């Protein structure tokens, strides 16, 4: 049994103008200890996906359809009280901006101890000892003084380590990290990413890394999901996606990176912008920006189909595969 299995997940936001579907037909699996990247531009729905796994989408969003099976248990159908025993305990979450994630009026110690005591019956002293140990694991200098400090007394990189330490407190099986290094500097980002990989490997923790940065994904994850306008458009081993992307959008995204063009040359750009969720074009959402558009692209939404080692949602790829099959 996979650790996590998401089946046909659909998430909607009920707005005054009617409901908007933010995620459509999302399915994927995650094995124990596996590191999965979810890549997409802002508005693609990647953060919403992260939050819907632990059933913590902010109002007015809600899971409309589908299931999130964690060790076979459907989290989408759990009651709040049961869900609470999983959040922070079996599944931990790391947020984007460490400056905003920690409560400014509580000490680091308070915020760690309360998390432990919410899930385990232990004394405050014992909880402090465990907290201290986890702070050491994330290489925080002089950890015992940190416990009594307030967040505003620490730097951004340090705070993100503390957030990671809080995530690790109860030895979870899965960590969901939502753009954990976007708000940090490059040199700090490299450190934090290395730390996360190290910790995941050492404790056999699965990781879902949500990011817009293909570079980070290629360094950290084993498998990658590419999202566009609320759908999965390509899914497969990270190496294959980076080196041999099949979906025109993924290709465009990779080619647009400055390192993919020759120094001093114009960059390869994708034209246009991602459509809003409430004015999606008919057919494939990428079709208005796609250079290889087929008539079918404007009519039907392509389904995720197997192609090589990946699953791709693109009419062109499907057609080419069919052709080569016929030829053989």
């Amino acid at each position, binding site marked *: 049994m996979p650790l996590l299995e998401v089946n046909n997940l659909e998430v909607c936001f009920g707005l005054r103008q009617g409901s908007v579907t933010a995620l459509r037909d999302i399915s994927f699996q995650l094995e124990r200890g596996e590191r999965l990247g979810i890549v997409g531009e802002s508005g693609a729905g990647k953060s919403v996906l992260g939050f819907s796994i632990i059933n913590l989408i902010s109002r007015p969003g809600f899971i409309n359809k589908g299931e999130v099976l964690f060790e076979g248990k459907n989290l989408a159908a759990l009651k709040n009280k049961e869900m609470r025993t999983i959040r922070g305990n079996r599944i931990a979450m790391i947020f984007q901006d460490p400056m905003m994630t920690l409560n400014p009026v509580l000490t680091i110690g308070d915020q760690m101890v309360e998390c432990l005591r919410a899930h385990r019956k232990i004394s405050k002293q014992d909880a402090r000892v465990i907290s201290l140990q986890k702070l050491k694991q994330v290489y925080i200098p002089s950890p015992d003084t940190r416990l009594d400090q307030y967040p505003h007394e620490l730097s951004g990189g340090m705070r993100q380590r503390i957030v990671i330490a809080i995530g690790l407190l109860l030895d979870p099986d899965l960590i969901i990290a939502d753009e954990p290094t976007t708000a940090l500097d*490059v040199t*700090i*980002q490299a450190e934090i990413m290395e730390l996360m990989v190290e910790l995941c490997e050492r404790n056999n923790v699965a990781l879902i890394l949500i990011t817009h940065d293909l*570079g980070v994904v290629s*360094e950290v994850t084993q498998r990658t999901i590419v999202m566009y306008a609320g759908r999965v458009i390509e899914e497969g081993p990270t190496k294959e996606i980076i080196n041999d992307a099949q979906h025109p959008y993924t290709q465009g995204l990779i080619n647009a*990176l400055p390192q993919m063009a020759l*120094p*001093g040359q114009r*960059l390869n750009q994708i034209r246009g*912008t991602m459509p809003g969720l409430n004015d999606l074009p008919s057919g494939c959402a990428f079709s208005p920006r796609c250079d290889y558009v087929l008539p079918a692209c404007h009519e039907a939404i392509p389904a995720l189909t197997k192609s090589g080692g990946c699953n791709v949602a693109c009419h062109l790829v499907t057609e080419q595969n069919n052709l080569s099959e016929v030829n053989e």
Partner: protein
Amino acid sequence: MSQPASLLKINNLHKRFSISGDFLDQLSFKGGKITRTQEHVHAINGISLDVKKGEALCVVGESGCGKSTVARTVMNLLRPSEGEIHYAGKRIDNLSHRALLPYRKQMQMIFQNPYASLNPRMTINQALHEPVKFHNPKWSHGQVLDKVHEVMEAVGVDPSWGVRFPHEFSGGQRQRISIARALAVEPEFIVADEPISALDVSIQAQVLNLLMDAQAERDLTYLFITHDLSVVEHFGTRVAVMYLGTLCELADTKELFSNPRHPYTKALLSAIPKLSDDREPPIKLTGEVPTPVNLPSGCVFHGRCPYANERCTQEIPQLKPDGTTMVACHGIDEGRL
């Protein structure tokens, strides 16, 4: 290193911000005595740079290194605490508002946040007309209109959209409009303060290409501020690397990427996430980033530098040539690195 071709020259620039509040906040009661202490953020500590005509000089550094302060000081949005700024041979940092006006036409700026850089209550037309009219008061309405159309087309924005308000556009489009506004007064020098860092990857490429096209067509000179080294490789003629308000290294782009000298530049380059599998592991920097309030003595980087020695903790390194590169490092000076 002054050359006649330099358009902008920054001489030993310092900028400090007081963070001690007013006079009363600065007083404290220690050991029975009232003492007055003033604390400053040392945003820029003695930077000298010159931007040559027609080039794109990139200033790179992490948050808090003072790169944006350099941009804002150059544009006279801030007054330097020390040092001088010369534009086309004339000192401009001490000019009055009125005396600056001709330079405002020649120097323009593009900002980071496309959502804040356009006035939400002004249509695109208003936003573009106002500066053209202001700097060319003798122009007829038709001339102004022509100019506005010309720049809108140049940045790929349909002139018929001019009646709309900024909130009706996406981030990338707004950034195009901001660029159009800067181009509208026909400047020759543009300071771009992180113009693409708030945009999505696929849009970043569009805007970067636009800036490169504009440079080619209009013979522009850029001072380009960014935290993203990978962008610099495409854009910059030369690169200046900043750390904690000081200049570590200044080199031609190719030279910097193929042969970085300063330990900080090396670490920065190695930290860029790469798509290829075969890259070396990033250089690990130890220690915390110091705050610009209490600057470390000596080389500002010594606390995190793996090669720091006694001299680095005491003596501030000067920018010295090493081949074609200028670098401020005792290790290189001594031939240790």
